[in-house]
Every structure is written in structure tokens, then in C-alpha cells.
């Protein structure tokens, strides 16, 4: 557990946080997908560093699965999806961007506070990063609820998954392999279903604006 490894992991964690903020402030969907891929890369590098420093080989497998799934397959599916759905335009947000950044900062402070007593218990070398992982999850959640188009909501959902994976790596040395495989399978199947689903929405409404999906209320 060399300090250098901890520093490198901290560096990637900060990068992850920065990417989460950048996704919050992004206006263009293509950049959003690329940022999501970049988030996956940061995650892979961080997991690989922890694996190298502590000699836990199953983390290499984790990093490999994340690389294949979140850096290659999912962004590819998303890019193809937006090309076929023709949704490359700018995204409006429900509240303006500087306001969202301030709310994001508040969420980060909240997440750090929440995670501080828990991270004391961790024996992992990446222990300080539990707060960052929770902050990423909360900010993806914020991104989901302030976007009015379907595809950014989906990306927010996926980046929440990224934050959770990072939390698993930082609190413990990753979940047992079988669970991770199951989670990966779920994410993949979820994406496929979402793809089908978005086509259905587009067919029905001729647009992917979420406002069309707010008609059902208690009469």
C-alpha cells in the first residue's frame, strides 16, 4: 500500500468528480457520451491501480469487464442510438447551468459529510474516495432529474452505475466476481431494453422530449 498508489487513485477520483461536473454542465449529447466513456476510462485506471498495488487479481478482471462494457460497448450503442434517432442537437436543462453547478457543489459537500464516518472503517487504500463516489452518484441523480430529453436521462442513469462501482472499489476491494458479472449483465440488458424502448417512444411521439411523458396523472 504505497502512498504513490493512494495518490494516483486520488488523482483518478478527482478526475471522476470533475467529469461528473462536466457532464452536469454539458449541452451537447455527443460530448456527454464521450464524457461517459472518459468516466469509464478513469474508473478502469483506478481499479487497475488498486489491483496492481494490492495484488488482488480479481480486480484486474473487474477492470477488464468495465473496460469492455463501459468504455467500448455502451458508448458504441449510445452513439449508434443517437445517430439513428437523430438527436444530435443541444439539450436544454430545466434550471440554468450556473445554478446547477451550485446545487452540485452542495451535493458534493453533503456526500462528503455522509461518507466521512464510514470511510474511517475502510482498509482499502482508496478509502478517502467513498465520499467522491457518493458525490458522483448524487450528481448523476441531479442530472437525471433536471434534463428534459430521454437520452441524457439514460446517461445519468449509467453514470450513477459508474459511481456505485467506484464506491464498491473504494470501500472494499470490489464485490465478489459473480455479483459483478451479474451487475454487468443487468446493465447490458438494461441498455438493450432502453434502446428498444426509446425507439418505441420516438415512434409514438415523434420526439424524445420527456414532457410528452407527463400526461398520466391522477384524475
Amino acid at each position: 500500500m504505497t502512498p504513490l498508489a493512494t495518490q494516483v487513485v486520488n488523482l483518478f477520483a478527482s478526475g471522476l468528480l470533475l467529469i461528473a461536473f462536466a457532464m452536469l454542465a454539458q449541452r451537447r449529447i455527443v460530448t456527454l457520451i464521450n464524457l461517459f466513456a472518459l468516466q469509464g476510462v478513469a474508473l478502469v485506471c483506478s481499479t487497475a491501480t488498486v489491483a496492481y498495488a494490492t495484488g488482488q487479481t480479481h480486480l484486474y478482471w473487474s477492470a477488464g469487464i468495465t473496460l469492455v462494457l463501459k468504455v467500448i460497448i455502451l458508448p458504441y450503442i449510445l452513439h449508434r442510438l443517437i445517430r439513428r434517432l437523430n438527436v444530435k442537437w443541444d439539450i436544454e436543462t430545466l434550471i440554468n447551468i450556473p445554478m446547477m453547478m451550485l446545487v452540485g457543489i452542495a451535493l458534493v459537500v453533503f456526500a462528503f459529510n455522509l461518507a466521512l464516518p464510514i470511510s474511517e472503517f475502510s482498509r482499502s487504500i482508496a478509502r478517502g474516495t467513498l465520499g467522491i463516489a457518493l458525490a458522483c452518484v448524487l450528481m448523476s441523480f441531479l442530472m437525471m432529474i433536471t434534463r428534459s430529453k430521454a437520452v441524457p436521462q439514460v446517461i445519468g442513469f449509467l453514470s450513477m452505475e459508474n459511481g456505485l462501482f467506484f464506491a464498491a472499489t473504494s470501500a472494499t476491494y470490489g464485490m465478489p466476481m459473480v455479483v459483478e458479472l451479474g451487475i454487468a449483465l443487468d446493465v447490458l440488458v438494461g441498455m438493450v431494453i432502453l434502446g428498444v424502448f426509446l425507439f418505441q417512444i420516438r415512434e409514438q411521439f415523434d420526439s424524445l422530449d420527456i414532457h410528452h411523458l407527463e400526461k398520466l396523472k391522477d384524475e
Partner: protein
Amino acid sequence: MNFEGILAQFAAMALALVVAPLLVGWVNMCRAWLQNRSAPPLLQPFRMLHKLFWKESIVAHGASPMFRVSPYVVFSCMLLASMIIPTLSTNLPLAPAADAIALVGLFALARLFISLAAMDIGTAFGTLGARREMLVGFLAEPAFLMVLFTASLISHSTSLATIVASLSERELSILPSLAFAGVAFTMVSLAENARIPVDNPTTHLELTMIHEALILEYSGRHLALLEWAAALKLFAYSCAGIALFFPWGIARANDHVALLWALPVLVAKLAAGGFALAVIETILAKMRIFRVPEFLATAFLLGVLALLVHLLLGA
């Protein structure tokens, strides 16, 4: 308060007065090279100052004493700021007053006076410039403060001398918080020094001006003082950046050998910084005014992130 310290202080003052216009000249040269133009000579800013000092200073009829006093106040603030930032040595008699927050206060004082003076005459462009300057300053100041707080938290003091001393003595390690703070600082200094992407220093279109609009009414020695003050501001920000992020080479107290090295090292760093500034100005385009708050909000955000990352990760 020993003799050595006073000497160092005067040396710092003289250095600031001389090097600042040279820095501006160097940046202009680099910009010209990058844009494939023939460059003005390095001493061109001195020639301009000389010309202006010999010209008559015309003041409008309705100008108040504030208008006449402002250039002197602004110049003194900038000079004082350059003097309290550790450039060659951390042993400054003014060190107890050289607080990071006091630094921000000095810049704010200068901004206040120049904005008031711009509005003094009552022309439309002066007021326009003053309002824009206040907009930029209002957002840039908190960001700058966050950067300084991050550095202060790492070195457990807000005194600039102590910050420099502790940061240069740390072992080499990757500090993400300083990385974020560095990016935030760069953005803030671009905004405060009226550089692209926030403001074009060579523009002559009044509607796109921020800094130029403030000094539109000045002439003669007043204008010379204000131009020198702008150069000193750039010098001060560059030295602050060097002190916070690249502090190696600044001499400690009673370290004579290091003092001899300090000047060449400083000149080298400033030259590199000036070149980097020229590259940034050439690559980026000027932003529209309503985008400037977003730019500065991002800088603020990065500053706060740096602070939070340091608090959480201890890095």
C-alpha cells in the same frame, strides 16, 4: 526589519517596475510570432510609457478630483501588490502584511477606483466598461479566494511567504487539489487581466471592450500610469501563480546563494508563463459577454472542488 530585508524589498520594487512592461512586451512578441507577423521590439512598452509621460494630460470639464487621483491610487495598489508577493525571496519586511486575503483586497481597491473614475465623466462607454468590470470582478474574486484558500489549507497559513515556503519544501507528490486550483487560477487571471477569452486587449471596438473602456478618457501621464498599472497587474498575477504552483527557486531568508539564483529563475519562469499566455490567446477565441459568467462560474467551481478534494482526500 534588517538592512538586508529593506534592500530586498527595494530590489523587488525595482524589479517589478522594470520587468512588468518587459513581460507585456514579451507576450506581444510571442503573440506576433505565433501569428506569423513581425514582432514589435521587446522595449516597445517602455517607449510607449516614455511617450505618454511627455504628453499633456487632458481632463474633461466635469471631472471630479476622483478622476485625477485614481491613476495614482491604482498604480500604488498594483505596485504594492507586486511588492508583497514573494518573487525573489520570502524575506520581506512587508511579509506580515502580505496576507493572501490582503492581496485580494488590494486588487479589489484598484478595481473600485478605476470603475468609479470611468463612470465619473458620464460617457456611455465609461459606464459600460465599469459595469462589465464589476461583473467580471464579482465572479472572479470568489474564485481567486478559493484558490488561495486551498493553498492556505495545504500550508496552514494565509501569509504568502509561509505558503511559498511550505509549498516549496513539500516532497514531490501529485496533489489533485492543486491541479484543480491551478486551472481555476489560470481562468481567473485570464479574466482579471483582460485577456482572451474574456476580453481582447488590442481591440478598438468600444462595444467589445472591458478594460479598455475604463481608460478611454485618460491621456498623458494618467494613461501612462494606468498602462503601467495594468502591466504590474499581469506581473503580480504571474508571480502569484509561480509562487503558489511553481515555488522552487525562491530564496529563503538568509540564503544569499539562492538569492543570486532567484532572479534568473524568475525571469525564466516568467518567460515561459508569457509564452503560455500567448499560446492561449492565439488558440482561443473571445467569448460573448453573456458567456463570461459561465466561464467564471466554472473557475469558481474548480476552486471549490479543489478545496473540497483537499478536505476530503487530504491531497
